[in-house]
């Protein structure tokens, strides 16, 4: 991959060119390379999670089957959920944050390039650590929500849950670092004239998402610390026999977990808010409203967590509060959908694959949103909670919303990253197989859920009469899997020999399209001055910007040094956390030493060439 990327760059040989080779990727602090690494890693994990899902689908295809053991099934669904959320949807969004945000705001890199690399390596090692549990046949098996007391050492005596809580805490570090990084970048590093209310929507949603990351992740971090102490040192946080309340885990988990849902969906909203105007040739309808709606969703998202807990028995007053808060969220979400439709209204719509995925998102996400309104109603939730109806709902939201949005972004920004188009024919195959496969997999689950099939079950009685829905779902899953293969085939083929793309292949309005595809490692030879929300759509402004951005860097750009401390620090953090598993105080204390040493060396290393 690296050789292709630099071949492209060679054609615009500027001041100082980026190095190639494995070592340069390991030590890179370039946001674009980190983005590509994020994307590739997340796609690999997507296949891991997908295989887990396929095995489960075949196990559930017919009632009372036992292709695999119940224990293995529990490990599969736990790992599927954890993988898809923490190792696929989140990092794939972060890949886009990384690639796109600095380009959209006219910056040369993120605010903390080495921290950015650290985030990636921690994510990679955390993900590998989680999946290493398979090697010990001890994958986490207490579901992705890990409800106490099932995760206590009494009921989960093995190391399964240890792998889970340790890798999740490791991944949390990456997320907080990423959140801090992007907030700082967006607040501090915008090009001249790029006011907040001129930022592209994708940057805006990155901003909101980053806030959710830095505020929600600490809560789960503490909950995981409690869990770890309970398991390893015998504290009684979630031990009912000692007065500890298992429901507190649920509160802490969902205080994190619900903002997490918006962490997943808001980047997708951002993507389609950029894609839809481009391919409708119209500016986003009601830009400020869409921005405020996004902020509002993020903010109210903090006050609704207990709608995951209506069956827990919090009492009618608490239930009513969370019903009301949850339903209020539906309003800004609806406003956004109508604004997107209004953006297309009266436009001139080109059905590129990116646009198809955006329209698909609108059609499919609405279904997920509306089933969400159904179980936002607490009494109705009592019937639907923990059934396949809910499984259908959140897959419509996460796959039909978050993932569709990210795939739209993939087709949209791939030409920028590679200098080549993704194949549109394969893209349309990808889209239609996704639509058919996805809907066929998850729509029938509404029925199996309402007809009484609980989720997280290894098998079900033939008496329930839900086999037909499960068979449809399995067929759909196969089609869906094929769509994923088409996507990867398209990625590999197009990266190597796709049709060459110009700087601005779509006629899009934002800054990232004002520089060559792929961009120089320093992005902008000089920083352009922005005077409007769609700078490349205003004739005069476009000329001015292109005059600045399409040139070469005249002097050596001020770029950060490559560094190997991020990967070393990430490795030592992972090691330190892994040692926690021993539960021995002095071993854990020893593990801190390399972390401390790497942090110190990191601090003493100059970040930029001229800092000596």
């Amino acid at each position, binding site marked *: 991959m690296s050789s292709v990327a630099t071949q492209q760059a060679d054609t615009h040989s500027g001041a100082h060119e980026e190095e190639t080779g494995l070592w340069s990727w390991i030590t890179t602090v370039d946001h674009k390379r980190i983005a590509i690494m994020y994307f590739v890693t997340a796609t690999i994990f997507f296949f891991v999670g997908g295989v887990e899902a396929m095995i489960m689908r075949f196990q559930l295809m017919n009632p009372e089957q036992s292709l695999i053991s119940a224990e293995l099934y529990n490990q599969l669904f736990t790992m599927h959920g954890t993988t898809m959320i923490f190792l696929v949807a989140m990092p794939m969004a972060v890949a886009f944050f990384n690639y796109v945000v600095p380009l959209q705001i006219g910056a*040369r890199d993120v605010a903390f390039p080495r921290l950015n690399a650290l985030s990636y390596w921690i994510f990679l090692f955390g993900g590998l650590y989680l999946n290493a549990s398979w090697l010990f046949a001890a994958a986490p098996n207490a579901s992705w929500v890990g409800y106490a007391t099932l995760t206590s050492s009494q009921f989960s005596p093995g190391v399964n849950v240890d792998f889970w809580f340790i890798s999740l805490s490791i991944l949390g570090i990456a997320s907080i670092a990423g959140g801090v990084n992007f*907030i700082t970048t967006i*607040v501090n590093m*915008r*090009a*001249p*004239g790029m006011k907040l209310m001129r930022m592209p929507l994708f940057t805006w949603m990155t901003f909101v998402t980053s*806030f959710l990351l*830095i*505020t929600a992740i600490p*809560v789960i971090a503490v909950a995981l610390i409690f869990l770890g102490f309970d398991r390893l040192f015998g504290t009684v946080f979630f031990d009912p026999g000692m007065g500890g309340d298992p429901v507190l885990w649920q*509160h802490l988990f969902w*205080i994190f977990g619900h903002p997490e849902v918006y962490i997943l969906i808001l980047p997708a909203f951002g993507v389609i808010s950029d894609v839809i105007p481009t391919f409708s040739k119209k500016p986003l309808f009601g830009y400020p409203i869409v921005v405020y709606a996004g902020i509002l969703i993020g903010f109210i998202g*903090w*006050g609704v967590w*207990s709608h995951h807990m209506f069956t827990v*028995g*919090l*009492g*009618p*007053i*608490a239930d009513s509060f969370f019903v009301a808060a949850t339903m209020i969220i539906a309003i800004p979400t609806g406003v956004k959908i109508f604004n997107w439709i209004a953006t297309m209204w009266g436009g001139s719509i080109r059905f590129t694959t990116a646009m198809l995925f955006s329209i698909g998102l609108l059609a499919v996400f609405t279904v997920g949103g509306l089933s969400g309104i159904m179980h936002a109603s607490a009494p109705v939730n009592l019937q639907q909670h923990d059934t396949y109806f809910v499984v259908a709902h959140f897959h419509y939201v996460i796959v039909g919303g978050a993932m569709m949005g990210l795939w739209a972004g993939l087709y949209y920004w791939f030409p920028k990253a590679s200098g080549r188009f993704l194949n549109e024919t394969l893209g349309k195959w990808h889209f239609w197989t996704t639509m058919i496969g996805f809907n066929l997999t998850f729509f029938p689950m509404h029925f199996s859920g309402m007809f009484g099939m609980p989720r997280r079950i290894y098998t079900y009685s033939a008496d329930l009469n839900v086999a037909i829905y499960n068979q449809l779902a399995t067929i759909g899953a196969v089609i869906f899997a094929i769509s994923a293969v088409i996507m990867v085939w398209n990625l590999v083929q197009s990266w190597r020999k796709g049709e060459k793309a110009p700087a601005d292949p779509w006629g899009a309005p934002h800054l990232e399209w004002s520089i060559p595809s792929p961009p120089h490692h320093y992005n902008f030879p*000089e*920083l352009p*001055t922005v005077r409007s929300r769609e700078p490349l759509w205003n004739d005069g402004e476009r000329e001015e910007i292109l005059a600045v951005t399409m040139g070469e860097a005249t002097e050596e*750009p*001020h770029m950060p040094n490559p560094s190997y401390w991020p990967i070393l620090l990430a490795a030592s953090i992972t090691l330190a956390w892994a040692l926690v598993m021993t539960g021995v105080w002095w071993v854990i204390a020893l593990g801190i030493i390399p972390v401390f040493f790497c942090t110190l060396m990191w601090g003493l290393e100059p970040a930029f060439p001229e800092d000596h």
Partner: protein
Amino acid sequence: MSTELQATQSGEHSHDEEGHGSVAMYIWIGVILAVLTFVEVAVFYIEAFEAVEVPILVVLSTAKVILVVMYFMHLKMEHRALTGLFMSGVVLTVFMVCALIILYHFLPRFAFAP
């Protein structure tokens, strides 16, 4: 990079080479903080305040927090972006702590148990 970005500086040059305040002011703040702490402890021990103890303590410790943030951490003198960033965390924290306390100590777990 530095030259182009110079133009974008939005007004406030908060980075003051002389620092943010005078030594005398810092010492005054330190003294006030100590006094507030002793008032808190006094409220704790004086039984007459028992009924209003909790609100008084909450107000006093909030005052202490605000003093430290505003003067020792110089937030008062900084760009308001910092206030916005930090306050977003503080507001959510206060909301979460209050919500959990209410859920556990003020609402019955199941209102109409027979």
